[in-house]
């Protein structure tokens, strides 16, 4: 069974190595992700309207702030769920 896992993982490594040859270079301006019309828009608007150097923060917390609000609620809900599930045993020695 160990050898099956090893063979599977080696096959995955080979697949990833083969595929990675086709990936675009870092900071390649003609990469598919950079050819979207949104890219230049975000870069320009961050400089003009927000004036902070980190474009990622600008997108995350300003242009896409609804998304970040949802993420925060997801984490908050996870905390609440763990709290509700595990709270039962808490303080049971008081009974």
């Amino acid at each position, binding site marked *: 069974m160990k050898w099956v896992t090893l063979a599977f993982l080696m096959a995955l490594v080979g697949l990833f190595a083969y595929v990675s040859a086709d990936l675009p270079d870092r900071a390649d301006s003609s990469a598919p992700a950079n050819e979207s019309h949104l890219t230049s828009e975000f870069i320009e608007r961050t400089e003009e*309207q*927000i*004036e*902070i*150097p*980190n474009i*990622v*923060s*600008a997108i*995350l*917390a*300003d242009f896409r*702030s*609804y998304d*970040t*609000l949802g*993420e*925060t*609620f997801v*984490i*908050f809900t*996870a*905390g609440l769920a*763990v*709290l509700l*599930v*595990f*709270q*039962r*045993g*808490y303080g*049971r*020695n008081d*009974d």
Partner: protein
Amino acid sequence: MTERHDSIILHFVSRVFMVPFILVFGIYVLIHGEASPGGGFQAGAIVASGIVLGRLTLGSDHSENRFPISLLIWLSSLGVGIYVVAGVIPMLFGGNYLDYNELPVLWFNNVAEHARTARAMGIFIVEIGVFIAVLSTLVILYDYLTLRVQDDD
């Protein structure tokens, strides 16, 4: 509930070097989130790891004096609340939800004598909310998942 480890080397290294460094680094990542990689999520995770390290080495009994579970539950709600309120306040001043342009924070430029746009400050306020929420939620997760259930017998 984690046990206290009675090793002086462990206590010295974690209390004097590791935990303070991790906490300060987390605050740094939060404050520098606008200029360098970082932000509320990452800073919250780093600071939470510092607190969890304190709980692991010093034991939950000692560490919970500083960050009790009841406080953390309040804090996580407060963090989400900061985000939501930062979204609602612009609506009172004629903007859309989460439209930081309408946030009444430009007076802060006169105090700090440093020109920043309202949207940059809105981003920072929101990051603080995310930071508090993530930090306290992660510590809540640790505390409840390591709770020792008292046996009845």
